Structures are given as C-alpha cells and as structure tokens.
C-alpha cells in the first residue's frame, strides 16, 4: 500500500478503507477533520479515529503492523509518512451528546467516515468552551466559513452544554468579516 506523498485526506481515506475491508469501522474526528474541511488552511499531522467496536483494538494493531506501521507511545507511525494515527475510545460524542450524523467521502474504492462540518465545529468549540483555547475557536470559524454549517443546531447544542455566553462570542466572530 502506497502511503508516501499522500495528502492527509487521501491518507485517511486509504487507512479507513483498509480497515473497513477488514470489517473494522472507524470514524475520523478531531483536527484532521478541520484539515479536510478547510482544504489544508489549517494543518495537523495526527489522525484521531474513533474505533466503533472497542473490542477490535488488537486486530487494528495487527492490521497496521502488517502495513509496517510501528507503535510509539500509543501512536501508530510509519516511515513513509509524517502523519500518525491515534485510536480514541468510543463513544463518538461532541460534548455530552452522541454524534448522530456522519459524513462519508468515497475515493478509489475506499470509504472514509468523518464528523460532519457542523459536528466538527462543535468538536472545536468544546475546547474553546472548556479551556478558553483560542486556537480551537479560530479552527471552528475556519470550518464554518468554508462549509455549510447548521448554526441553529450549534446554538441549540451550546445552550445544552451551558455555554450560551461563549457561543455568542463565536457568533460575533463569524458574523464579523
């Protein structure tokens, strides 16, 4: 399997497709979704996949070792790429709510499942809401400006997280160009 020279998006598609062909379902979350949804305006090198079946951890590890990945700390790395993979324990959630809507990207016979743009914004906002992380706020704004995002849903969710005040900060930033 050729990994050299792939973009993050193509790398994610190839890995996801490989795992799916071995009956292991993963969903991409975190900063890698921001990279994809902003067409590399933001850069990240780590791919966080939520493993839908947590009892498949050993199988996943073996499958990646078969591709000559090696494990360092808890990350999977490969000599042919700067990207590295982390498997996050389920459930797939944004804040206190389960993720219900998944986006799919198909390419070359492979399938990548990832957070929707709306949920990607929520995922970034959570870090801003709880840790005042301004970088995450900036990423949320970037995703919003480059995709179709359900602002009403983000408002509803922010309120249920008890973060209406901080949501208004986000809203003020996206409305001010």
């Amino acid at each position, binding site marked *: 399997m050729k990994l050299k020279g792939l973009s993050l998006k193509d790398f994610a598609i190839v890995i996801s497709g490989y795992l799916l062909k071995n009956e292991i379902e993963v969903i991409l979350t975190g900063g890698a979704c921001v990279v994809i949804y902003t067409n590399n305006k933001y850069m990240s090198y780590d791919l966080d996949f939520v493993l839908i079946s947590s009892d498949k951890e050993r199988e996943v590890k073996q499958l990646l070792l078969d591709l000559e990945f090696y494990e360092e700390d*808890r990350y999977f790395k490969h000599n042919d790429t700067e990207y590295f993979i982390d498997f996050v324990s389920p459930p797939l*959630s944004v804040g*206190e709510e*389960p993720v219900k809507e998944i986006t799919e990207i198909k390419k070359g016979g492979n399938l990548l499942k990832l957070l929707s743009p709306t949920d990607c914004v929520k995922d970034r906002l*959570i*870090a801003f*809401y*709880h*840790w005042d992380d301004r970088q995450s706020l900036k990423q949320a704004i970037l995703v919003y400006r480059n995709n179709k995002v359900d602002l009403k849903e983000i408002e509803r969710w922010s309120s249920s997280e008890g973060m209406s005040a901080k949501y208004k900060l986000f809203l003020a930033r996206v409305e001010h160009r």
Partner: protein
Amino acid sequence: MFKGIFGSENKGKILLYIYTHGESYPREIAKILGLYLNGVQKQLLNMEKDGILYSKLKGKVRLFGLNPRYPFKRELESLFEKILKFIPDEERERIYLPRLRPRRTGKPL
C-alpha cells in the same frame, strides 16, 4: 467501595481525588492516597487513553483533570457527590476536602 463500580479500588480513589481537587499530578496523588507512584501513573495514563481524563504540562509537571469532553462527565460527578457522603468523615476531611483558598507566604500552619 470503589471496586464494584470502577473495577479497581485505586482507580476509584484516584478519580475521586481528582474530582475533589480539580487537577493534580501523579506524585501528589500517590503521596496523599498512600499508593505506589508507578501504579498511579499507569492508572492515569489508562484513563487518559479512555477519554475520562485530560492531561497538560505545566512547567515540568503533568497535571491530570476530568476531561470536560467525556460524554458522561456530568453523571460521573453526580456519582462522586453521592460517594463522598459515604466516606467516613475523618477520611473525607483529610483526603478529599482540599484547602483551595490562598495562604499567605510564611504564615505558620
């Protein structure tokens, strides 16, 4: 008390300690709870991997806290509040009731 719910007595104590203290680091947790440092570090790393805890570096120290992104954080906190009621008074005051207000430098204890 903790083993039935958390699978391990020490895991429950460590989580309750972190809950009542906001954030802490392995050496402090091990010292106050009377546990081996290696065991505490292993538990913390496992819980971080499971998404229950976050960690961050502050200077040279790695602090651990309850992950606000953990989907069951609110329910976990309710559970901890209930557990605190069942802990003997002496143990609760000694271990799980930290002094959070500042103390002037040099003031005798």
